[in-house]
């Protein structure tokens, strides 16, 4: 084994690992451990930079042939996932001044990085579990609220179901092809045999569950609502991006055909429509974002209808823009006396009078999530639907766009609360934490760059 290759090709993972070890060492050595946030932050930023640099240089290698390989698109995917974790970390200090939060978050990121370079289902499974298990605990960490336990349990059980389905699908796949490699999955796609189809569908269902596609979405609103804000942000952006980008890797350059197209298109469409409609009547911000993220998962899976080349570009760009904007909204969410209070949509009423900057930030996020130009969410959505139309599924594209139209209203309602409603009486303005400001800038600056010149990133993906 070539040690240099191993060191370079997995450097983002190594950097995260170093961070985890340092955090654990700090916990053991010091009586009153401090400095968790800086350590975790440095580790994630270093990993992001390493992944971006390797992506730009186009480094490609296979440190564990057949199990794990990296190329520039794998690094780009990792960079996207890692950069979305930075604002989540910056937001975490108020809720989690120290403790296991940071280690768990870094382990989850390690898992996310692993699945993005997996070549076999063994690595994929390992990475998925490494990514998910810490998140169950992260949801539970917000024990301040009673519902956290219930939500974490629900999430755990459904996550376990997803794992079980994945394993069943993989065992069928192994039985059919005698191989555990991801390429074998690609070969299965065109096979008509019922066993192969079952394997494909089972594996796909695992991804649907993890990405919260209707009808496998019921865990998401509860888990998003119960978790603390940084954890919700982490789940709705990093985990979702990781799962979707891993799915892109799984499907490779294979075009979908036959019933699989219908399955994918209809479930995505139902997610878009149901997510957008259910979001309208929510009174809690995080629940609303949960339903919106169900709709966005639908758009992301829509991209799979397109051909192989455009798929990665579309999903990567969309996941990045969507993640940045979601995080921006969470970062700008005003502080309140307690967590449940902070979550109420009514709490946003008259926000522009109290905190103009935060209100404008949330407004930008909402317009972008709604896909209204010139914000980058539009280009992302355009990219997806362009791929769908180019693949010849015009009808699905039109239906998807109509579904996305249904989503405009509830985003506008947030705007209406912030700008057009008077503030409720007795609400004290809370100062914006400096770290939250930093998190906003981390989201805003790349988003503005993507808005002004999307061609730069798209040319590289």
């Amino acid at each position, binding site marked *: 084994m070539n040690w240099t290759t191993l060191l370079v090709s997995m450097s983002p993972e190594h950097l995260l690992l170093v961070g985890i070890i340092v955090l654990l060492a700090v916990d053991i050595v010091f009586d009153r451990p401090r400095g968790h946030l800086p350590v975790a932050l440095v580790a994630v930023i270093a990993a992001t930079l390493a992944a971006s640099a390797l992506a730009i240089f186009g480094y490609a290698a296979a440190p564990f042939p057949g199990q794990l390989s990296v190329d520039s698109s794998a690094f780009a995917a990792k960079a996207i996932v890692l950069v979305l974790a930075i604002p989540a970390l910056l937001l975490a200090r108020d809720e989690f001044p120290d403790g296991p939060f940071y280690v768990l978050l870094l382990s989850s990121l390690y898992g996310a990085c692993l699945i993005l370079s997996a070549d076999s289902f063994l690595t994929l499974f390992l990475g998925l579990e490494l990514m998910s298990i810490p998140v169950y605990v992260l949801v539970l960490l917000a024990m301040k609220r009673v519902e956290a336990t219930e939500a974490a349990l629900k999430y755990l059980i459904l996550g376990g179901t997803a794992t079980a389905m994945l394993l069943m699908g993989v065992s069928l796949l192994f039985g059919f092809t005698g191989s555990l490699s991801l390429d074998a999955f690609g070969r299965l796609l065109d096979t008509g045999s019922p066993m192969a189809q079952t394997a494909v569908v089972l594996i796909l269902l695992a991804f649907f569950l993890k990405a919260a596609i209707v009808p496998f979405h019921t865990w998401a609103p509860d888990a998003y609502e119960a978790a603390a804000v940084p954890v919700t942000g982490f789940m709705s952006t990093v985990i979702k991006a990781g799962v979707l980008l891993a799915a892109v890797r799984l499907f490779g350059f294979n075009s979908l055909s036959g019933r699989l197209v219908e399955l994918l298109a209809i479930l995505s469409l139902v997610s878009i429509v149901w997510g957008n409609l259910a979001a309208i009547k929510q009174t809690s911000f995080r629940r609303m974002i949960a339903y919106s993220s169900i709709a966005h998962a639908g758009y992301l899976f829509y991209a799979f209808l397109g051909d192989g080349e455009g798929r990665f570009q579309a999903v990567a760009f969309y996941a990045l823009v969507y993640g940045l904007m979601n995080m921006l909204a969470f970062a700008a969410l005003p502080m309140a006396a307690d967590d449940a209070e902070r979550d109420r949509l009514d709490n946003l009423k008259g926000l522009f009078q109290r905190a103009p900057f935060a209100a404008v930030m949330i407004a930008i996020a909402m317009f972008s999530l709604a896909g209204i130009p010139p914000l980058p969410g539009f280009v992302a959505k355009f990219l997806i639907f362009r791929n769908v139309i180019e693949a010849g599924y015009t009808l699905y594209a039109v239906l998807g766009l*109509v579904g996305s139209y249904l989503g405009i209203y509830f985003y*506008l309602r947030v705007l209406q609360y912030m700008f057009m409603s008077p503030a409720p009486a007795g609400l004290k303005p809370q100062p914006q934490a400096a770290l939250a400001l930093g998190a906003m800038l981390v989201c805003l600056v790349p988003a503005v760059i993507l808005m002004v010149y999307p*061609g730069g990133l798209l040319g590289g993906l």
Partner: protein
Amino acid sequence: MGDAVLLNVVLYLPLFGIALIVAMPDGQDDRIRANSFGVMLAQFVITAILYLRFDPNIAALQFETRLPWIADWGVYYHIGLDGYNLLLVLLTAFLGPLVVAGAFSAIQKDIKLFYSMVFFIQFAMLGTFVAQDLLLFYIFWETMLIPMFLIIGIWGGERRIYATLKFVLYTAAGSILMLAALIYLVWSQYQATGTLSFAFADLFGTKLAVAEQGWLLAAFALSFAIKVPMVPLHTWLPDAHVEAPTTGSVILAGVLLKMGTYGFIKLGFPLFPQASQLAMPLIMALAVVSIVYGACLALVQTDIKKIIAYSSISHLGYVMLGLASLDLLGIQGAIIQMVSHGLTAAGLFLMVGMIYERCHTRELAAYGGLAKALPVYSVFFMILTLAAIGLPTTSGFTGEFLVLLGAFNSAWPKHLAGDSAPLVFAVIAVGGVVLGALYMLWFAQRFLYGTTKIPHGPVLDLNRREKLILAALMVPVFWLGLAPDEPMRKSEHAALHFQKLVAGAQQPDALVAAPVPFAQRRMEATR
């Protein structure tokens, strides 16, 4: 090259304006107003220079900038001026300072955000007009929703939230299908020619089957017709106008509604010529229905703003009629009518705003005999009213007369060939002029004459700022009425281009007669 930079300056000055006023400290409201006005005025001056330098003898795009934007998809940042957009850009830039000045006393709440949004919508409107790339056009087109949503929603009247949501949801419904259509259009063009391009020029002359064209035209036309608005898609307009602050109404009536007709002339019809030819009778019928129905509704309104709102529907019906006539005079008339309506409707909404600031009601029945109490106001109001109904020497006459002339020009040969429908439409449209005179003059009579009734009166007549705004508006109203030659020469190439693209396209179905050669002959004979 230097002039191309000037056009970019015009486009981005509003963004500079936003940066300028956001950077200013709070509490200096007067300076924010003054600076906003200054930036808008500078924009108008530069636009006027560009207008003067525009060469009417060149058919091609002038002051062009073309840079790769999303190179992978063949999307270019491509802007420029031509006969289609020149007058509309000038109109937008001209109304900018007037809009800002008109809001000096009316808007007291959140004025930084307010002027930012005015600048933002100015940017989006100019961008929509100058864009020469389909995706760029769409982005600017949709961007207009954001500032308008906030302007109506924050500074509007009592039912502002209902009105602004209705406005956004209506407009977005149209454009979402346009997005699907434009992707499909570009993709099928790519299939046919092998070049991936969103440039307008590359997309004209598609070889799509007529059925396909029909679907795409329907998607584009839905979006444009909602913006115009054409009956039966007009119901958002009265709500938006009534609830919007004066500034919002002025922008809406002055420029925003022209987006729809501009979309039709620049894109909708030329992109899908064969389908458009087949759809023309329907378009013409809807245009005439808009003219008559809008006028009838205006006749029975009791709210001053609603009268003007419904009159907009009627006036834009003439624009659509002129375009659908496919006659050179009709097309040029339509372009002039767009500008003319922009001037008169903006002026009338400004004047309604001025009286509303003084009397706090828009009920027509509450007013009477303003001519005695507010003589200067009444003179300006009467001039704008007469311009709106198309009295000779005003801009309204030039527009409406040319449109009707064009409609008859193209209808007569069809009538001789046995198809009398266009002639019937043209005759009804002439009847619409009478209806227009009826509701506007009746409105003016009840408003300005009779026994003096002034709610919350007595009130002062116009102050100097208001007089200057209205005096400035009079200049182009009479300019277009007395000497329309120069602006018409600058838009002539565009009208010819439009006519060639739409009417000149060969119909695969030989049964559809082409009316154009005759109309052209007559045109040449009359010159």
